[in-house]
């Protein structure tokens, strides 16, 4: 018994550190609106949590499967409009409005099924463009359908909280959404389902050959992602109390999500969270600065940040920082011995090129 415990002690230390970090982060997240009660500050918190949820929902589908969706605004806007229409139609007001969230999620899932069945037939660039096409179809429906009230959009005067309580309450609601989405993403990552998704990302044809029901798996992830995005879209709608076709279905929304995911580290839950936490408050702050008013300077700046990130840190903050830390800890020696050094000549010949390159380029001095 004791031997077992000693053998696992280093692993347990790492696990304890991770758990401790998570608890600390959760404590900070919970305490945030208690420390900063100013609504102008908590506003940053609410939007940050909304985008953590959005990017994690994007990650569940796009991060795992490798299909880059730039049509998430379809669900976000539909969620907002579904909430507005349902509350208006059924005369729901006050906090009971939140009882409609499951309904909104169902609407998102219902939209995702035909959308996914059509879009997931094609891959890569064509998939991206199909999601853009769906996005524009939905935006136009929001402009032109009879119940969406055209350009003026919908209002949500359902909640009667005081201004300070309003932001704080919404912060906790958005935080709960974010935590739940992160938990779902984490569970999916650990499940067979998540493995199947990543197999599709690596090589879809091979995954199918190995018995992965590709369409079913992709569609399931797409539906989960769509339902979550619709729910958080309706929360956003209740928070900002209004939605117009060009805010609910915003073309920049999707590209911002992709940027957030790539800034943090594509394919990682932590990357999605970090990217959202950096960019959303950052852009909110930029838009409030008087010297950036007029829009064009913040636009140029955002574009420049984009370029710097993609060109100098193409794998994102977390993988790059992790690599750097590993190099520091091992003092230049590779942490994992490259495949070529250990394998037999035959095995080395057939080994994939990628690990060999990454092993030797970072720290070639240590291979000998």
């Amino acid at each position, binding site marked *: 018994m004791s031997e077992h415990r000693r053998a696992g002690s280093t692993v347990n230390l790492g696990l304890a550190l991770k758990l401790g970090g998570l608890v600390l982060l959760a404590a900070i997240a919970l305490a945030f609106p208690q420390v900063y009660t100013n609504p102008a500050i908590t506003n940053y918190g609410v939007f940050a949590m909304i985008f953590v949820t959005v990017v994690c929902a994007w990650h569940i589908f796009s991060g795992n499967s490798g299909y880059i969706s730039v049509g998430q605004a379809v669900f976000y806007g539909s969620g907002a409009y579904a909430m507005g229409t349902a509350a208006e139609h059924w005369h729901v007001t006050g906090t009971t409005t939140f009882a409609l969230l499951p309904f909104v999620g169902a609407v998102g899932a219902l939209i995702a099924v035909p959308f996914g069945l*059509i879009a997931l037939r094609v891959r890569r*660039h064509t998939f991206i463009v199909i999601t853009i096409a769906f996005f524009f179809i939905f935006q136009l429906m929001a402009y032109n359908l009879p119940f969406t009230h055209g350009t003026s959009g919908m209002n949500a005067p359902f909640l009667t909280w005081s201004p300070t309580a309003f932001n704080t309450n919404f912060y906790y609601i958005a935080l709960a959404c974010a935590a739940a989405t992160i938990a779902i993403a984490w569970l999916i990552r650990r499940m067979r389902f998540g493995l199947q998704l990543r197999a599709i990302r690596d090589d879809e044809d091979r995954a199918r050959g190995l018995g992965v029901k590709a369409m079913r798996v992709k569609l399931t992830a797409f539906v989960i992602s769509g339902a979550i995005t619709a729910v958080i879209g309706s929360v956003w709608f209740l928070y900002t109390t209004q939605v117009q076709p060009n805010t609910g279905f915003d073309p920049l929304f999707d590209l911002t999500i992709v940027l957030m995911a790539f800034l943090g580290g594509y394919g990682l839950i932590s990357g999605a969270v970090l990217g959202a936490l950096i960019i959303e408050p950052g852009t909110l702050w930029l838009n409030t600065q008087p010297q950036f008013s007029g829009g064009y300077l913040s636009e140029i700046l955002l574009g420049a940040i984009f370029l710097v990130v993609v060109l100098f840190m193409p794998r994102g903050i977390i993988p790059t920082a992790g690599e750097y830390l590993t190099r520091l800890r091992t003092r230049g020696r590779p942490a994992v011995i490259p495949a070529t050094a250990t394998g037999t000549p035959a095995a080395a010949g057939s080994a994939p090129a990628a690990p060999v390159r990454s092993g030797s380029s970072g720290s070639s001095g240590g291979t000998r």
Partner: protein
Amino acid sequence: MTREILQAIVDGILTGGVYALMAVGLTLIFGVLDIINIAQGVLVILGAYLSYSLLTKAHIDLFVGLLITVPAMFIIGVVIHWAFIRRLRGSERTSMTLLVTYAVALIIEGVLYKIYGPNYVTLNASYTTNSVKVFGFYIQYIYIYGFILAVVLVLALYALLYRTRFGRSVRATMQDETAARLVGIDVNRVGALTFGIGVAVTAVGGMMFGATSGGFNPNSGYDLISRLLAIIILAGMGSIGGALVASVFMLTVESVVAVWYPTWSIVVFYAALVLVLVIRPEGFFGQKAVRAQ
């Protein structure tokens, strides 16, 4: 009614010519470099603004001005490729190029806002307002010139791709980049020149768009890029003749639907794309995906 429909068809075909001018550059860049150039929409607007500046500041005629804007846009294209596109490698290249070209679009848009402001402007000349009566239909001269220009440009690009040594190396790069490299083609040079040509063509498209669209501002690029992407997907990405046919087809459909339902015509535009792809995922003129992933 029949007359209105016929007029709509004529309008659609001619506007399709304008869109073809913008779409051929996009599809060429896609075919050779395997990237979606999100900046293409804003580059069209940049081309339109260059023509606008030449027209208002130096009083140079729109078509004569192309002699200046086309080389200028070519250089801009080569610089964008050299500075950003060339460096992208690896498995996430598709999404990376999406982000990079989007960033370029944001920067260009910001600069255009700074210089020209958010107000809508148009390109005006005698031939943008005057029209000629052909078989009972009134057609503005600019559309006729533009359509001829579109056809000539598409033919010229065809000749470049299928009758020259450069075109041969471009097509080789389209088919298989690694193999092209192995037989001694400088893939980076081919990529830079293709990107330059693809952007240079948008100078013409931009001038035509500015003269026919009834007003543009720095923000007009986003609506444009989604339409252009729909067109080249429908055509089959990389097919230049297909881009012309698909532009004419899509714009005619939109124009005809607009006779009855003006607000829904653009939905039909995208719905046509979705329908076609359900039946034929590789588009009208596309080949089955050569690269599996």
